[in-house]
């Protein structure tokens, strides 16, 4: 059996996440992916913002930085730029990264700085009690959208691709093995990489939307998320209402800290 204890700060358990929350599944997938890449824990830094997902770093025994709401990516950018030898992982959520931190998210992707961003998308502001987020689907209820949300949503992965990310994948916690695989690929990618991870929030999202049981939300993921290979076989019609998972883009382009290093070497050679 895989020994998770080597990677966690046991003294900080039990974790703060609610029963049925998917964040613990992501944590385990992340730990397994970290182990698979063989990264040095001394040289790994995990940076988060504010929210349920952003509590992940507290449980992982590496260098961890729990910052301000929406600002994980700027802090991570500072860490990575200052010491490119460090492996920098950002853990964030749909509200943290695409509402209050939206500007940082797109600019880090544009800059193509070598950060691995794990964005837990649970369609809601969980920690503050279930307010509407940029990914709450139209018609779904939230504590600040009690008559049903009327705002269109962000396609987070699409946003990152458009902004210039070199690796973008979507995964979900129902397919935990695929989630682990996507995180692993993102960790190994040079450049800005994103894994958008769909994860259930029964407490703040499910309860208001007739899916209070964690099982119901897991079933929702099972029935709606379609991996890349299967997606290709679906007709336009069958794709309606489904979400594609797997690798969405994987390209090689110049990475920020490497370009900066080249510039510095050129200047210093003169």
């Amino acid at each position: 059996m895989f020994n998770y204890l080597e990677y966690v700060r046991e003294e900080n358990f039990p974790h703060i996440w609610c029963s049925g929350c998917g964040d613990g599944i992501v944590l385990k997938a992340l730990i397994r992916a970290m182990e698979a890449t063989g990264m040095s824990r001394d040289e790994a830094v995990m940076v988060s913002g504010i929210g349920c997902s952003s509590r992940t770093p507290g449980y992982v025994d590496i260098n961890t930085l729990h910052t301000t709401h929406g600002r994980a990516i700027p802090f991570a950018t500072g860490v990575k730029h200052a010491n490119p030898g460090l492996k920098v992982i950002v853990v964030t959520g749909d509200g943290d990264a695409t509402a209050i931190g939206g500007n940082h998210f797109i600019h880090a992707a544009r800059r193509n700085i070598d950060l691995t961003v794990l964005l837990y998308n649970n369609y809601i502001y969980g920690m503050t009690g279930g307010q509407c987020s940029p990914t709450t689907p139209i018609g779904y209820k939230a504590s600040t959208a009690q008559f049903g949300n009327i705002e269109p949503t962000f396609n987070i992965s699409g946003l990152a691709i458009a902004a210039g990310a070199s690796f973008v994948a979507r995964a979900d916690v129902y397919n935990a093995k695929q989630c682990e695989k996507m995180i692993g690929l993102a960790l190994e990618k040079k450049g800005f990489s994103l894994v958008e991870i769909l994860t259930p929030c029964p407490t703040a999202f499910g309860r208001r939307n007739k899916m209070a049981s964690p099982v119901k939300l897991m079933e929702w993921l099972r029935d709606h998320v379609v991996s890349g290979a299967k997606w290709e076989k679906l007709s336009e019609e069958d794709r309606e209402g489904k979400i594609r998972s797997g690798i969405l883009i994987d390209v090689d382009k110049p990475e920020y800290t490497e370009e900066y290093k080249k510039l510095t070497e050129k200047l210093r050679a003169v």
Partner: protein
Amino acid sequence: MGKDNFPNVRMMQGNQACAEGALAAGCRFFAGYPITPSSEIAEHLSVALPRAGGKFIQMEDEIAAMGATIGASLTGLKSLTATSGPGFSLKQENIGYACMTEVPCVIINVMRGGPSTGMPTLPAQMDVQQARWGTHGDHSIIVLVAATAQDAYEQTIRAFNLAEKYMTPVILLLDEIVGHTTEKVVIPDASKIELIDRKKPDVPPEEYKPYAETEDLIPVLANFGTGYKYNVTGLCHNETGFPINDNAMIEKLIVRLTKKIVSNRDDIISNRTMSLDDAEIGIFAYGSVARSAQSAVTRCRAEGIKVGLLEPTVLWPFPKDEVLEMAKKVKAIIVPEMNLGQMAREVELASRCEAPILKLGRVDGNPILPDQIVKMVKEVV
């Protein structure tokens, strides 16, 4: 006589002097965002830092620039950001984060007039209270002020030293006049510049606690990547850096954050004085206004009027003892400043009614001239 005859003398804009001072202090990271009248600091460092093997980055906004500055500092680089009024407001949340997590860094604010977009190209001193209280929550902070390009150079070095010594963000205030005036700066010999570096852990990683109690109240934060794996959070935390809800521990933390600055007031505060010993009228002035005040003192003294100047080069902690001492000696204290009395309020509190405090505020974007001060001195006499 070319400049080669005076290798240590340079003509520099105040903003450039900040950049040069930062390099001399060992600063190797700058994150910024364009804003008038501070952009020359970023521009200068965008050339100098990569040449010095340091890191420069222009971020997507002011908030990000502050965040990146803190992140870089956690890897051990001395880190700087620079801005002006509106940008300074945006940085406040993460300045509070640096206070709470005790990450050293320097923020230079070249003051322009506000509120809001205000007067981007005109001088003011309207951020002196924001520098003290801009971020939410109880905290203490160190705020320096520069009156000349020479000051800008030296105070930037001091700002880094104080940040590293007390593990705190340090703010350096310039006003637009100081930032944009080109004047003589004497560059000290590098070997004569005293530099302070943050403490390093003297225990092995398994025994290390970043916020463990220390005699001097100042924590020892290891550089990320050196084997000391720990947690940093803006939440109230215990000595291991993890969030807590224990009321007694919370109080201990918040009290210590203020105490570590306040209990070292004598080490931090610094003042220049002029003709204060026998003064009958005192002037309290800082930044470019202090230069007009010096001129006013000289002119009044020539006419036999006994005027003296107290010029703080550190605004926070506030030099309350020195102000009280002056208040006990003089008949009145004049406080000329390019705002509507922000520091005059502090002078009033500190002087404990020993002398009347006369505000001389100017908020039209013009500098306060020696004439104005002389005129007020004569009215008081």
